[in-house]
């Protein structure tokens, strides 16, 4: 049960404010914002306000989405995961209706947002967060904002960047807005999004690796037909009593072994045990069909090696080498490699490999970091960056301990590391001519991709 809900901009302005129960004083938005903003100073060591805290008997919950703060308050000792999940869902519902979630779109559509908020929660109790169910209660029409200026949101937004295969407006389309032509386009998006975390030791050995995946769906199909999603035949879930970090069991077999997974409300698993298919009637809006987690050994898409060597006269040299270990028909993009340097580094000069296009290296003076940007990396290729450092003082002790670790972010479209596949996507046919567009898209992102020195 919540008492109030509000959305604040980054500057702390009230964009939307709804008081459901009148139990919490009016100044709560200011109290909240001040607390979050000055958290660091007050609590000294805590670098960042946690998502849940309390002031004078009022509990404040917040999540940050698209640069906005979604906040709920209550005086009751409620389930924190319920409220935090609710805030995420409210954001998702609003995004489903407005097409894009931004300060601008919220301000233009606040009446519609209030309309939604009134139906989602009544007197503090959640009624529904289903975009589908809400449709029958909503009468305002969204005022669309220019999506191009909006920073992309959510994992699926990466499809908007430079990939011409997808209709650009797909993910920023409101569930209730009509296409300019007046007719809705029949289409469904199924995205397999994997976030991978790998830590390499200084000798290049993999210390930890994990894949967190989501099969996300966004349906614009009329009449809610039933859909069947077939996954790999050889898909195992759970690893018996073994420790999940026991890699031996997986070598030599092509089976995909997930540690664990969970499913959306609408998913029926009747035949999942037999043929690994999920059947569901997708509700409107964007939702995760399945979340999964895998620690089975997999081939990391990039190998990263970094070296720092001290030379004489307050100088040192850094070498960072990355090798793309995926097939050459696949290209990674938006690659950023960062490496923190010793605090007393005063200057860095770079030597980028000859003939490299779309690469840029920079020394970030303020936080003493090397930042190396690569527009794209083709599978199978190798890239090296050399940097010469100048120090302002003699280093004492171990220079390796004062720099690094190297961390890397990237996006690899049409690639997934786990091997999980959607083998087919079957839509119950209404007529022989009914053939909606089906988009099955794979993408891999770096979550925490770290190489130690």
């Amino acid at each position, binding site marked *: 049960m919540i008492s109030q809900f509000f959305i604040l901009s980054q500057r702390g302005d009230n964009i939307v404010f709804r008081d459901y129960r009148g139990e919490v004083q009016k100044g709560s938005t200011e109290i909240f914002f001040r607390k979050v903003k000055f958290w660091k100073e007050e609590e000294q060591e805590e*670098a960042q306000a946690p998502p849940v805290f309390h002031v004078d008997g009022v509990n404040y919950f917040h999540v940050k989405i698209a640069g906005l703060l979604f906040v709920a308050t209550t005086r009751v000792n409620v389930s*924190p*995961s319920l409220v*935090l999940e609710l805030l995420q869902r409210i954001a998702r519902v609003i995004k489903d209706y407005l097409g894009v979630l931004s300060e601008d779109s919220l301000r233009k559509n606040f009446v519609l947002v209030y309309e939604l908020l009134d139906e989602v929660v009544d007197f503090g109790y959640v009624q529904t967060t289903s975009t589908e169910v809400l449709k029958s209660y909503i009468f305002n029409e969204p005022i669309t904002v220019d999506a191009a200026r909006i920073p992309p949101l959510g994992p699926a937004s990466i499809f908007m960047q430079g990939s011409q295969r997808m209709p650009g407006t797909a993910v920023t389309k409101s569930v209730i807005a009509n296409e300019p032509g007046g007719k809705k386009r029949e289409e469904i998006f199924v995205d397999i999004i994997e976030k991978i975390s790998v830590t390499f030791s200084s000798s290049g050995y993999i210390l930890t690796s994990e894949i967190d995946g989501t099969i996300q769906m966004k349906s614009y199909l009329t009449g809610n037909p039933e859909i069947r999603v077939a996954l790999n035949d050889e898909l195992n879930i759970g690893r018996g009593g073994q420790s*999940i970090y026991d890699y031996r069991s997986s070598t030599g077999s092509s089976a995909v072994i997930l540690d*664990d997974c*969970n499913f959306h409300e609408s998913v029926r698993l009747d035949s999942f045990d037999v043929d690994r298919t999920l059947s569901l009637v997708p509700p409107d809006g964007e939702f995760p069909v399945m979340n999964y*987690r895998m620690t089975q050994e997999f081939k990391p898409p990039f190998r990263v090696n970094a070296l720092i060597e001290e030379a004489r006269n307050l100088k040192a040299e850094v070498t960072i080498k990355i090798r793309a270990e995926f097939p050459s028909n696949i290209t990674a993009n938006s690659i950023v490699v960062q490496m923190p340097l010793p605090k007393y580094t005063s200057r860095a000069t770079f030597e980028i490999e000859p003939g490299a296009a779309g690469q840029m290296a920079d020394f970030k003076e303020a936080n003493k970091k090397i930042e190396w940007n690569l527009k794209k990396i083709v599978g199978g290729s190798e890239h090296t960056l050399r940097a010469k450092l100048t120090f302002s003082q003699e280093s004492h*002790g171990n220079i390796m301990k004062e720099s690094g670790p190297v961390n890397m972010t990237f996006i690899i479209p049409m690639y997934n590391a786990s091997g999980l596949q959607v083998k087919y996507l079957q839509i119950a046919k209404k007529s022989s001519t009914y053939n909606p567009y089906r988009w099955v898209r794979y993408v891999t992102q770096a979550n925490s991709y770290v190489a130690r020195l």
Partner: protein
Amino acid sequence: MAPPAHSSRSPSPSQPSGKGEVSDLKSQLRQLAGSRAPGVDDSKRDLFKKVISYMTIGIDVSSLFGEMVMCSATSDVVLKKMCYLYVGNYAKVNPDLALLTINFLQRDCKDEDPMIRGLALRSLCSLRVPILVEYLVGPLASGLKDSNSYVRMVAVIGVLKLYHISSVTCMDADFPAILKHLMLNDRDTQVVANCLSTLQEIWTAEASNSGEASRERDALLSKPLIYYLLNRIKEFSEWAQCLILELVAKYVPSDTNEIFDIMNLLEDRLQHANGAVVLATIKVFLHLTLSMTDVHQQVYERIKAPLLTLVSSGSPEQSYAVLGHLHLLVMRAPMLFSSDYKHFYCQYNEPFYVKKLKLEMLTAVANESNTYEIVTELCEYAANVDIPIARESIRAVGKIALQQYDVNAIVDRLLQFLEMEKDYVTAETLVLVKDLLRKYPQWSHDCIAVVGNISSKNVQEPKAKAALIWMLGEYSQDMQDAPYILESLAENWDDEHSPEVVRLHLLTALMKCFFKRSPETRKALGIALAAGVADFHQDVHDRALFYYRLLRYNISIAECVVNPPKQAVSVFADPQSSEIKDRIFDEFNSLSVLYQKPSYMFTDKEHRGPFEFSDELGNLSTEANVSAQKVEADDKDLLLSTSEKGDAGFPANGSAYSAPSYDSSKSLSASSTSSDLVILETGVLHQASPSLAIDDLLGLGLSTTPAPAPAPPLSLNPKAVLDPGTFQQKWRQLPISLSLELPVSPQGVAALTTPQALIMHMQGNSIHCIATGGQSPNFKFFFFAQKSEELSKFLVECIINTSSSKAQLKIKADDQNSTQAFSVLFESALSKFGML
């Protein structure tokens, strides 16, 4: 809605005026109000939007109330909704104007479109104007009977709104009874869920002043209702599922088959993508199996994977909430997670609050088998550029060192930190090395060699400086420069910007050093004492003066006081008592887990949530609070007094943990003396058969009471101990073994004007009160007692109604067979007090 809904009577000067615009709007609205021209609705929409947007940014548009109401005569739903929004926001501050809206809202409640009926009813109930409640009853009653589920859904919550405006009106209209019927019969699951929420809230609020309401609330936990809801659980929305699961967690199944049935039924809820559903399910599993140790362990195994999936699949905020719960479980069963430690390694891009929890988790799961890997990982973080995380990591290494038996490798690592020469690393490490030496004095040689090389000028943080000074004093015989370093610190007394903690430590360190190397320290000690006596800080001043007088009185006694032989600290006190931990576990899937405090520490009583265990035990809060503080205080003493506790041979649960004592009243000297005597008794009687002897002792104390009853066959432990958390848990788990009603004598009624007296008396009979509550004429007491030679306990709920002169007893017992004997004892104790 819009936050600063200043009434028009008190316009704030700082507020954006917007006056011109508002009056503009006013005239435009007037023009449109009567118009029936085509397209008028569109212009109205634009105007209404403007009004609402002013409202949101905080401009007072309440002066438009009349015009808005006039314009509301429309069939356009969008317009209506905006109008409702406006009315809902300003009705409370303008109750007179709100009356204007009643008319059209009531009319809309009868509209043929169910959407309009529902919306109007919701707005009507949201006015929050007490004088208008009479207008709510009719529409609510027909709303509850509406053929459309949307209207019923709204009406049910409307009942709750009405209850909050005027509980009397709500109860008089008998709405709860209607809701009860709807809850069991409505086809629409959201209507059922809303009934449940509403009834929970109403009965919980009513329970304190009506026995019937508390019975009704207990009936929500009855088997038929629980089964009805469980069997349909998948038809409910995920949020309603959470509500039901929360309810089921309070349900007490009658046998183990039932427990397994429920768990099998809910098994697939653990695979839900909504973390709230999963956590609520886990709570059910954990609470159902509390008394079945093996199954409980299996539950831990079962929930591990889903929890870890939630941690990594959700937003960082959700991860935080789930990790908080994992942390609680890890603390309870570290072994279970000890092979999963890699899951708690920090990821590069995680927010601080997630990393911090993970570090705590790594500390908790560290054991012989994984310490090396964990500490290696932590050392990586210690070198990290992220300073807060580096600090936390060093602390984690220290904590692991303090909980391990073999610290060899860890000490080396800690000492390597000191060689990193980063100020904050050095500072954190010094504090840890100090604690480490208190526990493992055998390492002093290695540590001191490294610490001795640190220049005190590089240590600025007060805590670190204090730690360094402590070590200089404690090990001055092994550190050649110690007196001189201390001397330079003393000479710079006034330059010392840091707080008193450093000065206090400096005084003590110099004293210690003086006893070991007096010729070298004499001068420095003199300087420090002089400066200390002149210090503006009271504690520093007092300590300096105290040392000075002590030294003048007798130097060897001074040495005994300041520098006695020390024993190593065996276990550092846990800042949280086990009682508090149990209580937090009871409140699984709530904020208590994240704050690491039981709810009574951060919420007011009325907001404790609809199903926080009991009701009456809510009153317990103050007492529990007191005893918690007491325990904390004891823990602190423990920390200072090193390992005396073990040597003295007191039983583990000393006096501090016993039932709350009420030594305020002198007249009942018997038990208060006995509580003063605690140490003596336990000390003296330790070897003898304690219970008998204590019974005798108490018999003596009670000799003033007339003719002691013949010795009952059952003897109770006068020093029985039970913390409120365990009491609640037991009360929930055990079946009622005996319930009876007794007449209360007029004398007894009179005596209850001071319930304390009864509590004291019962305590004299080895029956301890754990909580009391209620107001005249209903008094409620919870007692417990323990058999003298076993752990078996009795729990009693005793409700005394002074107007009907009746006492109702409910007895629950670990050992059902002795219930009868106990009840005899209990009755005789009551009658001795003159109750019966």
